[in-house]
C-alpha cells in the first residue's frame, strides 16, 4: 500500500513519476481495445482519474501498468455498454480476441515505440511527410484530403501502406532483439 504517512505532495510526485513511466503502455492497451482515438483519449483520462483516486490502494513496487490496465479494462467495458446501442464497435467475440492480444502486447510497448522511432527514420521522406501531415499537424484525414484535393479514401490508403511498411520494420526489429 502507498504509505499513508506520505504527504499529498510526495504521493503526487510518486504517482506522476509512475504515470510518466507507464503512460505509454496503458494508452497502448486502451487504443488496442478502443480504436476510436477520441474515445480512447477520454477513457485514458478517466482511467488516470480513477487511478489517482485509488492510489492509496496501489502496492508500491508492484506492476503499475498492470494495475492501470486493469482499471482501464473496466472503464472500457463501461464504455462498450454505453455505446452498445449507438456506436460502431467490435462484436463480443472479436473484442475478447483483441483483449487477449492487447494483454500480451501492451507490456512491450516501450520496446515497440523505440523500434517505431527508428523505423520512421528509415521511411522515405514522402512517407514521413505524409505521417507528419496527419499526426504532427493534428490534421484529420478529411482535412488533408481537403487541402490536397485527393479523395479521403486515397489518403487512408496511402497512410495504410506507410503503416504497413512500419509494421514490417518494427516486427523485424523486435524479432532481432528477441522481444517477440
Amino acid at each position: 500500500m502507498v504509505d499513508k504517512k506520505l504527504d499529498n505532495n510526495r504521493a503526487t510526485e510518486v504517482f506522476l513519476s509512475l504515470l510518466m513511466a507507464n503512460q505509454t503502455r496503458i494508452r497502448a492497451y486502451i487504443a488496442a481495445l478502443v480504436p476510436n482515438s477520441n474515445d480512447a483519449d477520454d477513457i485514458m483520462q478517466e482511467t488516470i482519474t480513477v487511478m489517482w483516486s485509488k492510489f492509496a490502494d496501489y502496492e508500491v513496487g508492484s506492476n503499475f501498468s498492470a494495475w492501470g490496465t486493469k482499471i482501464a479494462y473496466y472503464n472500457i467495458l463501461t464504455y462498450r455498454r454505453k455505446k452498445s446501442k449507438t456506436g460502431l464497435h467490435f462484436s463480443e467475440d472479436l473484442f475478447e480476441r483483441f483483449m487477449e492480444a492487447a494483454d500480451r502486447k501492451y507490456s512491450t510497448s516501450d520496446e515497440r515505440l523505440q523500434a517505431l522511432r527508428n523505423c520512421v527514420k528509415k521511411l522515405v521522406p514522402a512517407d514521413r511527410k505524409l505521417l507528419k501531415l496527419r499526426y504532427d499537424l493534428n490534421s484529420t484525414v478529411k482535412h488533408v484530403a481537403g487541402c490536397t484535393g485527393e479523395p479521403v479514401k486515397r489518403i487512408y490508403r496511402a497512410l495504410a501502406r506507410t503503416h504497413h511498411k512500419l509494421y514490417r520494420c518494427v516486427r523485424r526489429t523486435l524479432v532481432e532483439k528477441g522481444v517477440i
Partner: protein
Amino acid sequence: MSDSKKYIRLSELMLSFCDGDLTPVEMAELEALIGDDDEAIEYCVDLLMDNSFFCQTGQVSVPNKSGGDSSVVSSKIVELLSGADEILEDSSFDLEVWKMLADAERAAEGLPRQKCSSQEQELIRKVERQKGNYTIKRSSLLTFAASIAAILMVVIFIKFAPPKTGVEVATLVDSLNAKWADATIPVGHGMRLRTSHTPMFLREGMVEVLFDNNAQVVIEGPAEFCVMGDDRVQLSYGMLYAEVPNEAIGFTVNTPTVKVIDLGTEFGVKAGFNGDVELHVVKGKTTMISGHGGQKASQDVIANEAKLYSAQGQTTSDIQCAKQQFARDIDSTHQFYWRGQEVISLADMVGGGNGFGIGMLNAGVSYEGQIGILDAYSSDTGPTEFVPVQGSAFVDGVFIPNGPTQINTAGVFYDGFEQTNNKYWLGVLNGAWHQIDLTVKVTRHQLRLNGFEYGTEDRPAIYMASNQGVTFDLQAIRQHTGMRIREFTSLCGLSETYGDHWDSMKKYSHFMELPKATFQVLVDGESRFIKKDMTYKDPVGTISVELTPTDRYLTLVTTQGSDKSNNGDWTLFAEPVLQIEQK
C-alpha cells in the same frame, strides 16, 4: 488475397475506424477480413498501438488535491517525426508525395472486398460519439509543481522548435477565426514576426500581416507560410492576398514552384498542395517566375490577368481573373472580411444579412420590428409610429408613409408623403413573391420586371407592396465594413405579373386594371428620387443616388398613387445595392 494486400486493407479500415470515419458497411468488411485469423488480430492490435503512439500528445489531467481545478501536465511522450521539418522546407517533396500517391494507386492491384452477410449487416450500429463528463475530484497540486519539474523536464518535448532567431520585419495586425495547427504557440494581435525558416500552420481562418515596409498580406487557411525576409513570404500552400505600396515594390511571394515579384500592385496567390499555383493580379503588374533550375520561365502578369501554373505538366496557362476569390481585408472587431465585393445588397440586409449574402431569402421586416420569414400574405393596417428594427445593425426601421411621418430613429420627419390608407401588404421582404388567397385567388409566383423574375439569389429584390418605408443606417454600414459608400442604385417598378393575373382579378371592383404607385428615395429626410404613378406597363425605373461620407440614413418608400388605392401595388426595388469602394 495476398497477406500484404489483406493487411493493407485492414490498416486502411482500422485507421478509418480510429478517426471515426468508418461506415457500417466497412465495419462489416473489417470483421469479415479478420474472420478466424489470429494473426490478423495481432496485426490490428499492433497497428492500433502504433497509431496511438503517433496520436499521443502526452497531456494528462491530474486532479487538484484541494478540490479545485485540475492541473494539466503536458509532455510530449514521443517525437516520432523529428527531423521531418526539413522535409517540409524542401519544396520538391510536395510533388513526390503526390506522385507517390498517384503511382501507388495506379500500380496497386484492387483489394477485393469481402461481402458481408445479411446477418453481419444487421449487427451494424450507427456511430455516434458521446463525450464523457469527467469531474475531477480530490486534492490539490498546489506545491508539487516545483518538485516534479525535474521529472517533467526529462519527458517534455517541444514539438515546434523555437523559431530561429531572426530579424523582426512584420506585425500580425489582425486575425479572424484563426486556428493554428499548434494551439500551444501563442499567436496574437500585435505579435511581431521574425524572419524564419520555421513555417507557421494556419489551419483555418484568416490573418493579416503588415510588413514594416507597409506591404500588407492577408493569408487564409488552411495555409502554411513563413516570413523569409522584410519583403518576402514563403507560401507552401494556402491563399494569400498582397497589397503592396510603391515603397515596397519588389515584394515577393515564393511558393514551392512559383515566385511572384510585385512591381507595384495588388495580387492574390493560391498555392495548392500539389504544387499548382494560381496568380490573380487585381491592380498593377507582377513578374511570375515558374519552374526549376534550367527550366525556369518568367513572364509579366498585369491587372485583370490571371495565370495557372501546373506543377505536374510544368506549364502555365491563362485563367479568368477571380478578383473576389481572396480575402483582402479583415476586421475582427466587426467580424467582417472583404473579398473585393463592389456592392452591398440592401435586400440581403432586409433578410437579416450583412449585405454580402448571408441573409435569408423570403425573410423580411415585420411591423413588430423583427426580421424573420414573412409568409402571412394579407392586408393590414400599419402602425402610425416609426418601428425600429431589432437584431440588425444596418436596418434602422420601418414605417407606413401617411402624411407627415417619422422615417428614422433620429426622429426625422418627412412631410412630403401624400395621405394614404395606412395599409400595407406582407411587410418589407427580401424577396419578391406574391399570392392572394382570399375571395380573390392569385397563385404564388415570383414577381417580374422587364421579363426577369426577381427575389432570387441571382436577382435579389426588396418587395414592399405599398404603402411601406424602410430606412438603412449608412453610418453603421460604413463602420462595419470600413468601406466608402459611393452611391445607391436600384431598379424600381410594379410587377408585370399583375397583367398575367388580371383575368382572375377584374371581377372584383377594388382592383383596377392599371394600379398606380409611387417610388421614392430619401437621404436624411431629403427626397433624392421620386417616380410618381408608375404602372406595371411603364418601363422599369432606374435609380442612382450619390452618397457622401456624411449621409446617415437612406430611406426607400412605396406609396399608393393618385388612384388612392394600394390594391394591386406589387411594387419592388430590384437589385437595390450600395456601390462601395475601399477608403
